[in-house]
């Protein structure tokens, strides 16, 4: 088995080199291969856990509803004709579960590790591995790749598109396929396309004309297919990536805003990516030896950041998912370089100062964590102690940073801080996202139970299920495959079961079905104060949950 090793310094040195071949008689596995296997498995297992455990919510609930409506032949604006939505609608011909569309999304993102593996000549062996690790633990990317929103193929498509843009098309027609897939994808691929176009235009790079013609034809074909809604019938011109891009600014795909999700989940990866992009730009200006892939990555990140900033207050995770992709791909090689520099750095004082900084920071954090638990800042004595420990930590770090030769030893501190900020979100997104703002608003499983209860009651009393019109959008998914139901704002005469606002007075002639029933659940992001924010890190279940209470009534027996 060959081994790819990374040497420090230039890009050429980052590229792979082939190690001596192993003896044919002995099976050897390199440390690199083991690392790739571990990180790839981490990537896949985290997403598989999310597939199984994430409640239906946010954009997924909206788009699953749209796909369901499309599958039963009902025109619904929630059906945006991406390839994923169309495939989901097709899957609903044979299942009513969200798990199959999720497995479809999982199958797509399962192709990401090999795609990153193919990027080793451009990112470096260690750089590509680190990039995959950052992608694996990115909570927003994890969630986006595991749920069945209309953008289910976007993450995988963006990564593969990047692979082909930097490695070249295996054949011109492949560009046509890519054009078609982009035209029927969500908006997460758009910053990459824009970034690549910007690099080509600014550098006046020669285009492969045949590939360009194929790509254009592919895009046109995609627009036609999408406009025909994959055979469901032409309604209007549809360009799904642009339609979803625009919809993200208007619709509520998430309780938290894109800016809040950044603060809650992915800021270390994004900030690291921005710093790495800054370094790449500096290197572009001071060295001619810059791989074109880095230019595309920097431009990709720039366009994605522009989207994130523009959509800062919009309720969606898509721009953040678009940012963390290039950020992780830039951060990976940067961390690999920094690790090499760290190993060669001067550790004479750092070996004492860094533990001191860690200990001081821990003590300061312990005091502040106690405040967060009590939701109020401590007295003056506590504040002085907290400030003192924080100052000692900062001073120790500054003392290390003062000597240029020792500066790279700060990497463990930066990685530790980043890991502390990201990993709770990773765990939350993968294993218990029913309490995470990332998945909110959630369509609880109880809503499906409510549907079963309503069906039974309607069968007993011989009438129709009537749902208040205010819940029209919320009931589509939990009440799928329930026959005819009525949406009304007033009680019709033939109502057997009423699902009514809990705040409305009980209707005459109906008796209440006991229980606390919810059609949705909103988890408020802890961004209304830094103590609340910190408390959330300590106690993941400390968030305010707003249930969408409904009252259930059945026709009173005569």
């Amino acid at each position, binding site marked *: 088995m060959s081994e790819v090793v990374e040497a420090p310094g230039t890009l050429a040195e980052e590229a792979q080199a082939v190690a001596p071949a192993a003896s044919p008689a002995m099976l050897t596995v390199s440390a690199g291969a083991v690392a790739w296997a571990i990180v790839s498995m981490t990537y896949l297992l985290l997403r598989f856990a999310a597939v199984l455990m994430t409640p239906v919510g946010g954009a997924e609930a909206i788009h699953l509803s749209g796909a369901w409506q499309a599958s039963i032949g009902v025109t619904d604006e929630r059906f945006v004709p991406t390839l994923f939505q169309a495939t989901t609608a097709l899957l609903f011909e044979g299942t009513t579960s969200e798990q199959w569309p999720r497995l479809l999304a999982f199958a797509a993102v399962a192709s990401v590790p090999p795609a990153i593996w193919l990027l080793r000549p451009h990112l470096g062996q260690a750089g590509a591995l680190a990039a995959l690790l950052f992608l694996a633990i990115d909570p927003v990317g994890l969630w986006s790749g595991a749920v069945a929103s209309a953008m289910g193929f976007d993450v995988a498509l963006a990564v593969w598109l990047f692979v082909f843009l930097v490695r070249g098309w295996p054949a011109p027609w492949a560009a046509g396929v890519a054009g078609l897939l982009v035209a029927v994808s969500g908006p997460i691929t758009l910053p990459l396309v824009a970034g690549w176009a910007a690099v080509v235009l600014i550098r006046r790079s020669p285009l492969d004309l045949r590939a360009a013609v194929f790509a254009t034809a592919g895009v046109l074909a995609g627009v036609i297919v999408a406009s025909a809604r994959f055979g469901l019938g032409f309604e209007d011109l549809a360009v799904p990536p642009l339609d979803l891009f625009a919809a993200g600014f208007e619709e509520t795909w998430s309780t938290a805003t894109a800016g809040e999700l950044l603060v809650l989940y992915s800021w270390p990866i994004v900030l690291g990516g921005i710093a790495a992009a800054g370094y790449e730009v500096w290197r572009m200006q001071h060295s001619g030896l810059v791989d074109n892939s880095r230019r595309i990555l920097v431009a990709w990140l720039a366009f994605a950041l522009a989207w994130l900033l523009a959509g800062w207050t919009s309720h969606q995770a898509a721009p953040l998912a678009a940012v963390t992709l290039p950020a992780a791909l830039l951060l990976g090689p940067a961390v690999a370089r920094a690790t090499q520099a760290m190993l060669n750095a001067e550790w004479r004082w750092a070996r004492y100062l860094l533990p001191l900084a860690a200990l001081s920071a821990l003590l300061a954090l312990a005091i502040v964590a106690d405040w967060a638990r009590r939701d109020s800042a401590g007295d003056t004595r506590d504040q002085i102690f907290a400030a003192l420990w924080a100052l000692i930590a900062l001073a120790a770090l500054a003392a290390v940073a003062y000597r240029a030769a020792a500066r790279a030893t700060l990497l463990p501190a930066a990685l530790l801080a980043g890991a502390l900020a990201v990993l709770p979100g990773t765990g939350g997104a993968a294993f218990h996202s029913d309490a995470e703002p990332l998945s909110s608003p959630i369509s609880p499983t109880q809503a499906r139970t409510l549907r079963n209860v309503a069906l039974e009651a309607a069968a007993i009393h011989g009438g129709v299920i009537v749902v208040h019109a205010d819940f*029209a959008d919320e009931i589509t998914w939990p009440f799928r*495959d329930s026959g*005819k139901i009525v949406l009304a*704002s*007033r009680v019709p005469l033939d109502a057997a079961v009423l699902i009514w606002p809990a705040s409305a007075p009980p209707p005459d002639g109906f008796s209440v079905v006991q229980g606390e029933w919810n059609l949705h659940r909103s988890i408020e992001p802890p961004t209304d104060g830094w103590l609340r924010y910190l408390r959330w890190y300590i106690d993941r279940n400390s968030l305010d949950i707003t249930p969408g209470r409904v009252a259930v009534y059945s026709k009173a027996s005569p």
Partner: protein
Amino acid sequence: MLAGAVLLRNLRAASTARGLTASITYLAPLFVAAAIAYTPWYLTFSSQASGFYAYVGAGTRPAHAFLQFGSLLAVALLSLTWSVRAREWRLIADGLLFSAVVPLVPFLGWALLAGARGDLDVGFDARGPGGWVTLAAYALTAWLLTAATVVSAHRRRAATTVVGLAAVGALLLYGAELFFIKDVFVGATPRLNTVFKLSYQAWILLAAAGGVALAVALRRSLQLRPAASWLAAPALVLVAGGLVYPLLALPNRTEGFDSERAKTIDGLDFLARNDPDEYALTRWIAEHLDTGDVVIETTGRRYAPADDGTPRLVDGSVDYSEAGRLAARTGVSTPIGWYFHEIQWRGDSEENRLEFSSRQDAVDAIYLSNDPAEVLDLMRRLDAEYVVVGREELRRYPGNLMAPFGSFLDTVLEAGELHVYRLPRYEVVETS
């Protein structure tokens, strides 16, 4: 202008035939693409402009003209001090002679147009002495700047652009003194749109040219003839006088930089302070409705109960009232806004007048009808889902004139005595 510039450039760079060919092949695709891009606009555009007329009313008073454009014209005229040279007197004389057509032709055109309509005498008399002074000042300015443009262009100087812009700016002001585009304001303020649309452009052209003219004049006079820099003094005084506004506006608009008393830029702040219920109603609409949703709100016409209790129209004027306030404040649609503004923007035709009147009647009928079926029918006809009973509706349909909406519509907001009602919904949906 683009075509002219391209043609000029190509004719100077090559022979006539080649120049023409190059220009056509460059411009033709551009024009075709532009025409295609603008096709939807061409197909749907309808203008309120209904003719080009000689203006025969009172002229602009010199004080008003000076207050608005004095400083800009003064700095623009400074370009004369450096765009032409005194020793070019023969060229200057030719330029002046040639450029005399610029003020003369429009004036003759005005006289012909006014004469053709039999208004020439009225035009001469109505303008008044002040109006003639303003007209002469604009004519002189346009003439001098055009002559300077011609001389500069002949010498191929960079100054041509600057003085050319200034000349066009002055000519626009001159033109607005002589002619106007007829629109719906012809009765009361015939020049309203002509003056302010052309003034915008004149302002920009004169400001762009004036800035350069002032800077170059100062620099040249200080470098070459310091003693001549006094020529810029009057213009500088005028510009400095104009700068009083930004200096005083800041403390004025911020109440002396007092954050407590400072005025807000929130246009609904007054409503939140003065009428919290109406504010709550407005916010609810903004937050819960889409811009495409149609909301019934008062037409602005005011009713009172007659002796027999039936509604009696007591005030039919709606423009510049609170009518259409919710559409304006939230962006939702409403069937009818200010009647004469609707006519102004959508066209003054019998068909439109009938349509707008019928909409006013329909909206008023929704508020005043006692028949729920009629209300529902009218709402569906107007594609409206919501009816608002806000402060204005309580004023315009007072007493018990309004229908008991709560008995047959869903109450979706109650803020004090104000309400928003919605059509009842009933829809059978398939889920499998």
